[in-house]
Structure formats: C-alpha cells, structure tokens
C-alpha cells in the first residue's frame, strides 16, 4: 500500500516536472516570437494578414510542443514531434501560397518570391520529421530490448 502511494507520488512529481519543463519551453518560444515579431512589425503594416498567420502558427506549434513534452517517455511524444514537423511543412506551404506571395497595396501590385526560403524550410521540416521517426524507432527498439531482458 505504502509502495503504491510512493509510486503515485513519484508519478505526480514526474508529471509536474514535465509540466514545468513544457511551460518553460513554451514561454521561451513565445518570448522568442515576441522579440522576432518586433522586427516583422514594418512588414505587418504593409501585409495585414501576416500577424494573424504567424500567430496561428505559433499557437499551434506551442500547443504541439507542450503536448509532446507532457507525453515524453512514451511513444506519443514522437507522434507529436512528427505532427509538429508535418504541421510546419504544410502550414508554411499553404500560408505562403506555394512560395509566391502577392498582394495589392493601393494601386501597386506587390509580389514576393519566397520559393527558396520555402524549399529550405520544408527540407528542414523533413529533417525534423526524419528525426522524430528515428527517435520513435529508437524508443521502440529500447522498449523491446527492455521487455526481452
């Protein structure tokens, strides 16, 4: 009975530690976003949607990051990490309209070609996805070794 209670206390402590770690990570990420958004302020005056697009990305990314952190030590952590990488790839591709961003400001048509940036970002996203898959394989491998043992 006492061992069971100690075990549950330990789990609670572990969960609290994960929650604190996730919160700190999320907070750091948000602070970085706030600092970077100051640099993007001149652009958001010209492109009204960019603030909203970046905010949605940051919110979803932080959520996936927190969930991934809370589920650390389980296979779900790797699922969420893979989801994070896939979300990054798809969201960038969709929000940047395939790399060509066009808008009309007053009577001036503005077009920005971000295909190179998008290609590099997608490659990095794929690299993140590959890392998550490798981590999942490593995790399952270790688990099976542990069970055999």
């Amino acid at each position, binding site marked *: 009975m006492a061992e069971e209670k100690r075990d549950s206390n330990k789990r609670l402590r572990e969960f609290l530690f994960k929650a604190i770690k996730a919160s700190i990570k999320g907070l750091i990420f948000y602070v970085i976003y706030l600092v970077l958004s100051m640099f993007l302020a001149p652009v958001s005056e010209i492109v009204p949607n960019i603030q909203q697009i970046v905010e949605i990305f940051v919110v979803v990314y932080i959520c996936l990051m927190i969930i991934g952190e809370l589920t650390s030590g389980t296979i779900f952590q790797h699922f969420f990490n893979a989801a994070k990488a896939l979300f990054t790839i798809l969201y960038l591709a969709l929000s940047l309209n395939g790399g060509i961003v066009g808008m009309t400001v007053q009577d001036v*048509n503005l077009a920005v*070609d971000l295909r190179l940036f998008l290609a590099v970002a997608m490659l990095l996203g794929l690299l993140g996805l590959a890392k998550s898959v490798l981590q999942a394989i490593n995790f399952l491998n270790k688990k099976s070794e542990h069970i055999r043992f």
Partner: protein
Amino acid sequence: MKILIRMVGIATTLFWIFLIGFFISAVYSAKDVKFDFGEPRIGLSSDNEILFSLPITIDNKGYYDIGSFNVTTEISDREGFMISRASTFVPVIEKGRQIMATHEDTIDINDLLGNSQDYLFNDTELEVLETVSIKLADVIPVQTSRNLSVPWGAPLYNFTLGKIEYSGFNVTHMIATIPINFENHASFDLTGSIQMRMYNNANILMSEGQKTIETPQNTPYYGQVELDVPVAAITESGYFEVYFLTPFFNFGPLVISYG
C-alpha cells in the same frame, strides 16, 4: 543511434536559427532601403523622339546588398498596342551606398501614327505599366508593378482649314488664301512645314504651296497659306491634301474637302 539523432537535432536547430535569423534580418533591413522616384521629365532625344526620363535614387542603408534592381516601363495605347518598352538594370547596390540612375524610354511618334492618326489631332491618354524588381539580400526576389495613365497632348489639336478667300492676281490666276489653325498640346515645340495641294472637283491639281510653322507647346497657331490658282480650274467644291513635315514626324496626306 542516439548520437545520430542528436546530430540531426543539433543540425536542424542550427539551420532553423540561421534561416529565421537571415529571413527576418533581410525583411527588417528592407525598411532601411529608400527608393526615390523623381519628377518624370518629357523631352526630345537626339533622334527627335519623345524622351521620357525618370530619375531614380536608391539609398541602401540595410544590412545586405540589393541585387538585380530593374525598372521596366511599357507604354501602350488605350487598345493595348505596345508602343515602347525600356528597362534600366543595376546589377548590385552595395549596402551603405547610394545610387542614382535615370530610366529612359523613347516614343517614336511615327510608330504611334502607324497605329492611329488620332494622336496628332486629339488629346488622349497612354497607358504605362511600370515594374520595379529587386532581390533583397541578393536572394529574395520582390516585384512591384502599377498601371499609370499619362496624358497625351496632340500636336495638331483641332486642326482646321478656314473658308477660302480668292483675290485677284492677274487675268489667268487668282490667289486663294486658306486660313489654318490648330493648338499645339504636345510636350514639345512644333517646328516644320505644312504642305498643301489644292484639287478641284474634277480631281485636277490646281496648285500647291507650303507654310513654315513654329508653334511652342501649349500655344495656338493661326496662319494662312496662299496658293496661286488658275481661274479656269476653280470650282465650287474640291479637296485639299495636307502633308505635315516636322523633325518629329511626317504625316500625310490628310484629305479635307471644301465647298
């Protein structure tokens, strides 16, 4: 396996930091790049073509060089027929430097007249498509374009011939005085000559003559041509063939009936 995963993780993080840092600094530095398009000037080129020149000043106070600065203008008429196209290209604008360039585009009036003679006699508008493209930090292409309407002033606006007045000269010939008037709405001073041929209603050439004109821009012209016509050939009606010979364009015949 663990080392490999860690290496991939570190490499990905570093590349993300580099990519986001570079992108944001490139976009942020774009605000310190000043483009100043001066007042467009319209003049004449050495080939007597209309010269449209636009002074451009680029002050690059950003963190990166700007590559492939290109200004292109396409001038077309209201029906979309392209009259002229010109580009000005600056390969690199280094950071911290100011560059002054002049974009020039020429319009050959003879090309305009090949499409429609209305440009000589009626004021209208020309469509200008202005495109400016640059490469931010030499890797992010940005292009802006806009359509403008530029007023076109006709050099022979409201060209009319007045009522012919005959006066005696000798027994066989009379002097026909034909008043000419128009307004020069063009952006250049019109110099040259007007040649006139007078035909009677039997299509017989009765006389011809010419008049030198010199009309500054935005001023009206009132003048007259005197023709020595044979009395026997004079009829109530007929027509004139008018030719315009100027350094900027040659046009004719413009057929105007009388009587």
